[in-house]
């Protein structure tokens, strides 16, 4: 953390008892639901501001923001959407930064089904493999890159079941309708461990980094709570929470 950020963070903290509590609305990518709730709870306690979280797919947020949605901040599931919004003048210039880097896992709800090296993909003895829609979800696109890198894409493509987003991909696997699927490590991480089933944490070199960027939207420009939230997201306290959910930084 840069000294400037540190100082502005503490200055902001010190100023809060005097400042009026403000409300802000944060559009949060579905995969970041759990950590966002934890961070927002701490943020509200520490800052006195009120943070309202709206969860959803990044592509949908884009359409809503372009059509006047009242969000102050966007925590996207990718870095493309915030960049695109920035180019189109819908954001506060200079506010964009990477708040988390996602890790992809191959997961099954059954213990022992997925081995720690992902050999299960080579055997291909399953009917359905759930992925998030690669056209719209960064984790889905990363899953396709991994299968291509392993030269298993052609063989497995016919077994794809596509979910609208990573949350639904998790649901397909959790209910056992798909034997396994590519999801985000954050979805099955609890206190730094994999909570249930069996998983292969995909080596990061097999796909492009899933950089998740945050950006202040034009509407948040004059909202002190929006800047406070972005500063808070850069704090060590928030970063520790982000990492405990299986993200990198």
């Amino acid at each position, binding site marked *: 953390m840069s000294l400037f950020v540190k100082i502005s963070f503490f200055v902001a903290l010190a100023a809060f008892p005097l400042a009026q509590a403000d409300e802000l609305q944060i559009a949060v990518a579905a995969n970041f639901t759990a950590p966002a709730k934890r961070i927002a709870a701490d943020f509200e306690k520490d800052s006195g501001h009120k943070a309202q979280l709206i969860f959803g797919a990044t592509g*949908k947020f884009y*359409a809503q923001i372009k059509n006047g949605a009242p969000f102050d901040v966007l925590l996207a599931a990718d870095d493309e959407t915030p960049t695109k919004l920035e180019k189109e003048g819908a954001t506060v210039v200079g506010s964009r930064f990477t708040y988390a880097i996602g890790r992809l896992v191959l997961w099954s709800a059954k213990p022992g089904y997925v081995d720690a090296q992902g050999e299960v993909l080579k055997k291909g003895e399953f*009917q359905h493999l759930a992925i998030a*829609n690669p*056209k*719209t979800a960064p984790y889905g696109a990363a899953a396709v890159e991994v299968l291509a890198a392993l030269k298993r894409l052609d063989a497995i493509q016919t077994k794809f*079941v596509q979910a609208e987003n990573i949350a639904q991909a998790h649901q*397909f696997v959790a209910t*056992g*309708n798909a034997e396994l699927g590519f999801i985000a490590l954050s979805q099955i991480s609890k206190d730094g461990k994999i909570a249930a089933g069996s998983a292969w944490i995909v080596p990061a070199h097999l796909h492009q980094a899933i950089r998740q960027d945050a950006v202040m939207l034009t509407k948040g420009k004059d909202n002190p709570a929006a800047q406070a939230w972005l500063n808070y997201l850069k704090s060590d306290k928030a970063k520790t929470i982000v990492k405990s959910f299986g993200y990198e930084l």
Partner: protein
Amino acid sequence: MPSPADLAAIWLTFKLATTTTVLLLLIGTPIAWWLARTRSAWKGPVGAVVALPIVLPPTVLGFYLLLLMGPDGAVGRMTQALGLGLLPFSFGGLVVASVFYSLPFVVQPIQNAFDAIGDGPLEAAATLRATPLDAFFSVAIPLARPGFVTAAILGFAHTVGEFGVVLMIGGNIPDKTRVVSVQIYDHVEALEYAQAHWLAGGMVAFSFLVLLALYTLNPGARRGR
């Protein structure tokens, strides 16, 4: 212009809606007949169950169907025992879901039409020594024709408009479960607004024409209660 994938989605939707409508007319007619004629205490509960999809969000239906038809669900166990495999992510699964989803839109117009016939014509048929089955096919069904037309059109159109349930149990597989509404959603999510407009505009036009046909060809028909 619509892409080959869009055309495939349109064809699949047509196939799904046709299959569902035919099945619904076969399943819905006896249910509607029973609901219209019975004095049983079960009339209320059965009518309420049939009407559930009108008030339930499709995601509720989709979620429970996903659990029920999954490997640990009652229906899933049964289909596996019968050697049919699992229903989610298959065309068959969508048909089953659509039958539930569109059931009230078929049963209620037919039931109303049967109700409107009253006892008179059927009693007259009985005095002419028509068996109940004979009376049903040669008196009740022809008299209830407008109800059947309404039921078929609404069942078809409602299945075409299905989205939430398909999203929950479909898995977005080309030629199997990727119907038009899901394809539109994909285009919008991928910011392919031009392609989305082709399909979305087409859906608006289709729905309007269907309802226009319903209200001009069948002016007496009104849906359900």
